């Protein structure tokens, strides 16, 4: 389980990515993209695009009326016999869940996969208080045994091989198994079956919360989610306040988008619609149902009209699969529960730009993520907005980048908007690079520019294309010569002026 970080150094994290990670990550992402493309083809491009637009519209409408839908949700969950709790931050959410556990003398907790409990670090709180807490999604179970965090939203153990998992089972569980997926899954099934039957409390996240009916929707494949919400006498669901949707009809759009985008399934194996606790003992299910609604920075995300759309996310992971950066570095490089393009826009807002200033820059801005997003989040615009926030600050947060960088960026922006200054800067840089130049490359530069050359050489500035263009006619050649003379004259007089001032200062000093 990952700890809530105090600083995410994306560059350093990238350097510690093990060499086999990109290959296994790409194997998974390619598979998901292929199956996704196949089910989208069945629906047809036109209908799919209409679904995406409807998905965007229903999510944006909800987020723009979030106060209304949250109040409605609370009312309906309570009416169905459930208990609603509100948590301003991670600490408060953890305290609420722990209090519920302690009130009911809970000793064993089984958990279904949930990003939000990863975000708040719930497992550590429970384990520290002496409550045995077990992840039951096969991938999560494996990464919990390994003591690491998930590396992909859908396939948490994507970075591990079957041989590695067999070793892990031998080492941590004392179980011998052939490194075959079916055998390993069967072993985990047998281990976890006993845990499900003995657990006092089940914890889940939520894929959707239906305001109209107070219904919790869980989209799963393995059946562990059903176990966690059916067997223990107590069910606690933790969900971000962004998970609410207006009504059941909204799910007609969102449940068509989510499994197709996530795993390329038309529908996941199990989709459960849970409204409050069981009504009679005979039908099975928990005696008590608690819903913890978590803010933890989401109301801050809401403040900015552009970044607000981050909250439309339905956590399908399609943007990870299609992202060239994610495909090269995997999930751990992002330093926290959420990774890929959605991590790059969500994390800086959740944990603050100070902690995650690197992440909005961990993108080539190619826009593949925005093209694939089932709810059309304008990820590129949000990345740019957050880059600006890092460097210049905005109404939500002050700038966090060093003053030198800010000054540098401002100067470059100024130079690029004035043609003669741009020309002059180009000429000056060509002169300035001369001592560092080795052929076509600048293999090493002094700090702070060595941040680049530590990793790879910088191509040297070479011919001036505009000058070459001018020289193609005789008049142009004359003009180019004049420009050159003017430039040399300007440089010479600037140098003379600086020299003169220096001499004067020295004279005064003596």
């Amino acid at each position: 389980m990952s700890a809530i970080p105090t600083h995410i150094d994306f560059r350093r994290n990238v350097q510690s990515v093990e060499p086999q990670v990109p290959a296994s990550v790409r194997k998974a992402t390619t598979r998901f993209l292929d199956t996704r493309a196949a089910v989208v083809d069945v629906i047809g491009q036109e209908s799919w695009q209409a679904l995406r637009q409807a998905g965007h519209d229903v999510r944006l409408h909800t987020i723009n009326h979030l106060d209304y839908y949250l109040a409605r949700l609370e009312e309906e969950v309570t009416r169905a016999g459930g208990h609603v709790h509100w948590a301003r931050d991670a600490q408060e959410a953890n305290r609420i869940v722990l209090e519920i556990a302690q009130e009911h003398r809970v000793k064993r907790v089984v958990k279904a996969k949930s990003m939000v409990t990863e975000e708040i670090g719930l497992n550590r709180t429970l384990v520290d208080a002496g409550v045995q807490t077990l992840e039951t999604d096969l991938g999560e179970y494996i990464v919990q045994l390994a003591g690491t965090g998930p590396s992909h939203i859908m396939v948490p153990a994507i970075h591990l091989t079957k041989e590695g998992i067999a070793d892990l089972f031998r080492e941590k569980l004392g179980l011998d198994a052939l490194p075959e997926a079916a055998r390993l899954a069967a072993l985990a099934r047998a281990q976890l079956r006993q845990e499900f039957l003995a657990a006092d409390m089940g914890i889940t996240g939520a894929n959707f919360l239906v305001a109209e009916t107070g219904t919790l929707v869980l989209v799963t494949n393995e059946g562990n989610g059903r176990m966690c919400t059916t067997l223990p006498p107590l069910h606690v669901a933790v969900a971000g306040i962004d998970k609410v949707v207006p009504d059941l009809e909204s799910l007609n759009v969102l449940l068509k988008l989510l499994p197709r985008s996530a795993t390329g399934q038309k529908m996941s194996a199990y989709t459960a619609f849970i409204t409050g606790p069981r009504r009679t003992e005979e039908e099975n299910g928990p005696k008590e149902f608690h819903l913890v609604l978590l803010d933890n920075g989401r109301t801050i995300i809401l403040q900015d009209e552009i970044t607000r759309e981050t909250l439309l996310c339905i956590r399908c992971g399609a943007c990870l699969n299609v992202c060239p950066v994610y495909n090269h570095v995997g999930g751990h490089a992002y330093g926290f529960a959420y990774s890929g393009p959605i991590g790059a826009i969500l994390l800086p807002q959740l944990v603050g730009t100070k902690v995650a200033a690197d992440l909005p820059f961990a993108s080539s801005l190619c826009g593949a993520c925005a093209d694939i997003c089932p709810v059309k989040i304008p990820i590129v615009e949000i990345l740019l907005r957050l880059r600006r926030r890092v460097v210049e600050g905005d109404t939500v947060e002050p700038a966090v980048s060093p003053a030198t960088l800010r000054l540098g960026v401002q100067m470059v922006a100024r130079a690029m908007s004035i043609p003669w200054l741009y020309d002059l800067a180009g000429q000056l840089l060509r002169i300035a690079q001369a001592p560092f130049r080795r052929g076509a490359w600048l293999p090493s530069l002094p700090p702070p520019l060595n941040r680049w050359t530590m990793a790879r050489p910088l191509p040297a500035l070479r011919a001036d294309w505009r000058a070459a263009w001018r020289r193609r006619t005789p008049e142009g050649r004359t003009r180019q010569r004049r420009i050159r003379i003017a430039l040399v004259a300007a440089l010479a007089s600037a140098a003379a002026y600086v020299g003169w001032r220096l001499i004067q200062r020295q004279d005064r000093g003596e």
Partner: protein
Amino acid sequence: MNKHPARDEILGQVRAALGRRAETSVANVPASARVGPRQAGDANGEIEMLLGEIAKLGGNPRHLESKADLEAALENLVHEEGVKKATMWQTSELKELGVAEYLGTLGVEMISPHADRDQLADCDLGVTGVDAALPETGTLVLRSNPEKPRLVSLLPRVHLAILYPPLLDADLGTVLDKLRDDSCVTFITGPSRTSDIELTVTIGVHGPKALHVWIVEKTDRS
């Protein structure tokens, strides 16, 4: 004293962020956020589609024309899956089909669906009905009430779901509207599965290891 400081603070911040002064009392979902329903094909086509989707997912679908067919299928299932103990929903439809009696004659011990959970986990077979089905995705919709305990489709090693053709629904949208009254509704689309280990599709993780879906023609029920 404020009784709900966290609630009021969060809702207050939401309103402030959205630039609202007071509580919003009404919100209407825009028409652009809706999609039209899928149109059903002819009845047989829909049945074929449902069974085809379930087969693709690793389930075992069958179309049974008569009561004799059903008994033969049950006998087959008991032998193939090695069924010794079974449990079943207590709905009138399943009772009318005489599934429990026939399983009894095959030597299968019937466990009450309200038995202890360890006993249910020990069952080889759980038999349920189906409350609706979606051919487009191969999805079965199971409601929850005292006659239809949730564990029957979850704990036994094999899940057999029996349904009648009229329960087929054309579209998710129309099914969703029927979910309003239950504390739990489960959509089951193929057997329990995972791809968590090196993306190898593995059937039967935590839920049943096998899913059998039989469509029984209603005319033969009596």
